[in-house]
């Protein structure tokens, strides 16, 4: 267990390298728009998988299928955590209970709540109090609030957001909000952490910070991560495995090196000018 962290952040029972998420040939259409056609790939425990591709390629839609926000018309998404769950039949909150947490492309925090409350909401599935014990703030409700506060303090330390604990997130700067959103996902003690463009709109210093947090979570806690990111520098450096989408079709899948050399990927996404932007 990493130093200075008294809780298990990763809730997956799998061993590194085990098959965790199996996306099997999924199709998704909105009216006339075919957002995903026959996309399939696998994610292994404790790996960082990056999904890249041009805008509108269907990256977010794919992850929305994993979260249960969209339901693919065909194909299946299976999740392993000792047992096998078919995610395509589940509602988002059920999927969260399996230990799949995520952040969003355009920051979807609870604006009027404080940082602590946002993080505490991340603990939702671990809290047991109900409306009665909560309304009385009695017994379990009180105990678990305090216990979980301790857990959150660890995350706060990890993400270096001590000074803003009690601030309403709506008033924070963009970069800090992105961090809080990561913290909220971590609070769930995820087996699988999904990050949708966590570094968009940051300069390289801030990206470094973010990369540091992501690597910490992955390397020291062993959390499996799927990340969508347009910054090829970040993607190539931190991911173990990259999947490339274009117009809803998978056009590349492999290690960073393999993908960088794939002509289809170069044509559709990276551009001939190999300079990384």
């Amino acid at each position, binding site marked *: 267990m990493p130093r200075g962290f008294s809780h298990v952040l990763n809730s997956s029972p799998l061993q590194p390298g085990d098959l965790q998420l199996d996306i099997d040939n999924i199709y998704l259409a909105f009216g006339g728009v075919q957002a995903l056609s026959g996309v399939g790939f696998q994610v292994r425990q404790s790996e960082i998988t990056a999904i890249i591709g041009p805008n509108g390629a269907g990256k977010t839609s794919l992850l929305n299928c994993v979260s249960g926000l969209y339901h693919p018309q065909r194909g299946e998404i299976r999740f392993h955590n000792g047992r096998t769950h078919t995610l395509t039949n589940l509602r988002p909150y059920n999927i969260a209970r399996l230990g799949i947490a995520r952040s969003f492309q355009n920051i979807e925090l609870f604006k009027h709540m404080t940082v602590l*409350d946002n993080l505490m909401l991340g603990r939702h599935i671990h809290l047991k109090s109900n409306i009665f014990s909560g309304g009385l703030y009695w017994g379990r409700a009180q105990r678990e609030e305090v216990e979980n506060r301790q857990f959150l303090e660890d995350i706060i330390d990890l993400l270096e957001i001590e000074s803003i604990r009690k601030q309403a997130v709506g008033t924070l700067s963009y970069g800090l909000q992105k961090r809080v959103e990561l913290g909220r996902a971590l609070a769930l003690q995820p087996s699988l952490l999904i990050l949708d463009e966590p570094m968009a709109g940051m300069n390289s210093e801030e990206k470094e910070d973010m990369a540091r947090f992501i690597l910490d979570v992955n390397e020291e806690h062993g959390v499996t991560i799927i990340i969508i990111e347009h910054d090829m520098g970040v993607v190539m450096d931190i991911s173990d495995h990259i999947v490339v989408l274009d117009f809803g079709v998978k056009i590349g899948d492999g290690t960073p090196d393999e993908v960088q050399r794939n002509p289809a990927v170069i044509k559709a996404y990276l551009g001939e000018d190999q300079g990384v932007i």
Partner: protein
Amino acid sequence: MESGIFHTTYESDMALRRTPLMRWRIYLIVAVIVILPFFGNSYTLTLANQIGIVAIGAIGLNILTGFTGQISLGQGGFMAIGAYTSGVLAASLGVPWWLTIPIACVATAVVGTLFGIPSLRLKGLYLAIATLAAQQIIQWAIVRSPLGVDAVVVPPVTIFGTSLNKLRIGPFGGSDFWFYWIIYLFMFLTILFAVNLFRTKVGRAFIAIRDQDIAAEVMGVNLFRYKLLSFATSSFIVGLAGALLGQYRGIVNYERFTIETSIFYLAVIIIGGLGSVSGSVYGAVFMVIIPAILSNLGQAFSSSAPAIARLVPFAQQAVFGLTIILFLVLEPEGLAKIWRDIKDYFRLWPFSY
């Protein structure tokens, strides 16, 4: 947070009233509430009781509308369920009054949950109008039921077999006096419940649904369940307000629970402050006291300046409208915000800026 106060445990950092100043303010308010009935006549007590009931109802509505973000125009209908259940049980079946109240709360919660079902699919104003439908349907159902349009006369409330009207201790007593204690006890419990609710799991989930429902669901909140729970909790408390009103007034009539009631309560929570428990109370005080003051002004003028007095009825309605407008134009976040600003000002005083 006040400077110079450090908390060494999470418990004290998470306590409701974290500083001595906050605690003293509470003691002061409690003291005023306890002393008031011994000095007020039945008119002031009527007003105070009305404030108490409105505050309870407003907290109920605020849980749904202010905290969970589901605008409700069905408040009147839900209050009616509470009032009728309590009233009819007492009047027709002879159930003791104190027992009718929890039953009424549960009944209202059930009906409220039922009408909360559309919230699965409806959002914002579409949901608001669905709750307006609840209002209309409940009212229609009451009138077409065997109860009909006639008022239900609720038997006088008794304690130890004595009717509250007749129960006296020294110079104090009467229905208004005793009901004051009943209402404020319930109000106190309601406030405590609501405040605690919003610092624990369920309440937090409500607020999360209001702020960003998709994110809440992805974090594991079962939207449908929690929305229904919010409808249930809210209507439970609204039912309490209805039941208390019915018992206190001794008569239950649907005309008291029309769409105007729904709008009145919305005004209370907006003026008080959406998503604020204390705001619900401030709103209740404000919305009950202002018309009373205006009407008293009218009476004051009636002998000295009859011409002005004649304008009072119109002015009263105009002022009601104007107050709402001015409030929202000047301080859209309501009385709770104004109160916070005042506190901030004094906390930092003399270094206010």
